[in-house]
């Protein structure tokens, strides 16, 4: 937090030598809150609030349980856009993976360890809690635990400014890479979740890879042959829609299909990854808003979701702190700093929950989405508070 230098003479209220030795006085709660709002920004709306804090409650307000402006019928229509948005997020993670994996394997291992520990902590706590308390669920216990564990593993480090200090830059890269392992696990998990599809399970786990490679090949062939920017944008959006549509048709994870496609565009020679990234930049923010508003509108209050919230919050925090502590052995950063930045779950947690809602039975899917939506907003608020506090203590 930047503190303006007091240049007044001590005779007129400025600091004397004793004041300087004691340091600046602790801010009042109001000053502290205002300083949070001034020091960082997101979307340019409310300086320090991340999109999840704004748009999740907004979606709940506009949804069927609120004002009803987003009706159930509209939500069912939005499922299409949500699927495509999930594929787009998968593409972004895949592009980040493709760029980092060549020269940051150590970082990737550290990020995967961090996410694996969080998944394990939240999944184990959820399974134990649900089994012990007799939580009524209409899905296999492992599916519920894994869905919450994978949603909890997501980090966005939205509270970190990569240019502010080295640990923030490392945290941002860890947050980019720690989504890869959960997406891979989600691909396998969705093949295991019981469904009406009678096909062999191993084929379902390979289908996202095959579909992603096919879509990557299609994009690699057509993107650079576009004769104008508008035509190229149509190709990009069409290919992304194809990724979402293929995933929906095959009943596999659109995140996984997008991840493989994004990885292909980064690995293959050419500018496909940069083309996609440039065009996605235009739709990235609307898609994030769409996902968050949709998740908020789909939020269904339930006692079971409230019960799951406590173990989810506690063990996500424990998982992130422990994961950061383990990852710090691979990285030259402070574990506590890294954990503070990784607290923010970002939109990917909501994306995981929306993805699992599409495959889980309705009651359990709504339970997962409601728990993750509330926890995401809570963690984003927590991250707003914890990072400046953390930095201020470090400076002392």
């Amino acid at each position, binding site marked *: 937090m930047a503190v303006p230098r007091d240049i007044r003479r001590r005779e007129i209220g400025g600091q004397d030598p004793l004041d300087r030795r004691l340091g600046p006085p602790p801010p009042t709660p109001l000053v502290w809150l205002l300083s949070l709002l001034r020091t960082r920004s997101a979307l340019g709306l409310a300086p320090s609030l991340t999109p999840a804090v704004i748009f999740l409650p907004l979606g709940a307000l506009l949804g069927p349980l609120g004002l009803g402006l987003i009706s159930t019928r509209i939500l*069912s*229509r939005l*499922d*299409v856009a*949500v*699927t495509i948005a999930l594929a787009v997020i998968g593409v972004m993670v895949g592009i980040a993976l493709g760029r980092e994996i060549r020269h940051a394997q150590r970082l990737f291992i550290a990020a995967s360890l961090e996410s694996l520990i969080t998944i394990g902590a939240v999944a184990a*706590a959820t399974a*134990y*809690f649900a089994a*012990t*308390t*007799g*939580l*009524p669920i*209409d899905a296999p216990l492992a599916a519920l635990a894994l869905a919450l564990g994978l949603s909890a593993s997501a980090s966005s480090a939205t509270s970190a400014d990569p240019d502010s200090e080295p640990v923030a830059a490392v945290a941002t890269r860890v947050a980019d890479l720690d989504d890869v392992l959960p997406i891979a696990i989600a691909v396998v998990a969705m093949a295991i979740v019981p469904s009406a599809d009678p096909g062999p399970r191993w084929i379902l786990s390979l289908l996202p890879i095959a579909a992603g490679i096919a879509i990557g090949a299609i994009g690699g062939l057509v993107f650079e042959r576009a004769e104008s920017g508008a035509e190229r944008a149509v190709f990009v959006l069409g290919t992304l829609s194809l990724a979402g*549509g293929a995933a*929906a*048709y095959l009943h596999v994870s659109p995140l996984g299909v997008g991840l493989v496609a994004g990885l292909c565009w980064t690995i293959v020679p050419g500018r496909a990854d940069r083309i996609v990234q440039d065009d996605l930049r235009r739709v990235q923010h609307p898609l994030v808003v769409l996902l968050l508003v949709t998740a908020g509108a789909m939020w269904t209050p339930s*006692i*079971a979701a409230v*019960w799951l919230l*406590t*173990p989810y919050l*506690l*063990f996500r*925090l*424990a998982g992130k*702190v*422990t994961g950061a*502590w383990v990852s*710090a052995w691979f990285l030259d950063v*402070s*574990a*506590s700093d890294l954990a503070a930045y990784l607290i923010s779950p970002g939109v990917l947690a909501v994306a995981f929950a929306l993805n699992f*809602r*599409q495959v889980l*039975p*309705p*009651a359990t*899917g709504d339970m997962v989405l409601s728990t993750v939506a509330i926890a995401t907003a809570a963690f984003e608020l927590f991250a707003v508070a914890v990072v400046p506090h953390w930095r201020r203590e470090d400076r002392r």
Partner: protein
Amino acid sequence: MANGIEERPGRETRLVVLVVAVSVAVLMLLARFRFPPANLTTVAPTPGPFAGLAARATFDDMAATIAALMTKITPGLAVVPLVPVPTDPPVPVKPSAKAPAPPALPPAPPVVPSIFAVAVRVRPDVGVVAMPAGMQLATEPGVAGGPELIALETARGVASLRLPPPSDTSPAVPDAVDRFSGFAYVAVVTATANGPTLRPVFIGRVDHSPDAAWGAPTVQIGRDSGVPSGALIYALDGRFIGLAIERTGGISIVPAPTLDSVFAAAASGSGGAAR
């Protein structure tokens, strides 16, 4: 701080242990509670992500059409119970003086309808029903307001009935299809104990052939059409096509105009078409 570098990992390890210990302790505490029992409600499964955009299946449209048609045509229908015609009792033989007396006959069982047939109203109070050979209208003795037989047309295999008036005020006599040419989905109305029911059936090639019993052409649809004898045939728009009856060559449909001209006129007393 000379040992600040060594202190920091120690502090972070303590932080990790503290956070994990608190989390586990709270989890153990919460796990002592039981989730309040609640009845799980059955809800419809979540539709697929693209179900909203996909065109609705034709079968769904068909089902909706049939359901709407059921509501539309029900006032023009009536389900009547049929029973087998009782056979003549055996002629008693005069007992000889040496023969022992025959045992007493058991009492006659109560009249229980063995099948149900659906009648179409050609007038608000007059209906026509296919009457299979060997069957008759089951009338409960002493019960007023039920269907009454007006005439039995043995050669045609149908009977005209006096029916109680429909419960609602909607027009009971449906519009008729003048000439059914086949190759169309139709609604086949059959009877159940609880009322008429409908199902869609596709009828392909049909032949209009003269029928001496009716004095007018009937529509032959063959044996494998899936239409039982006695069923009523409606177009999907609610117009009445005709009544299915058993003929030598299979099932034939007596066209609605023919039924109307024969029975409506007979019931009004202006014609004597009943044979």
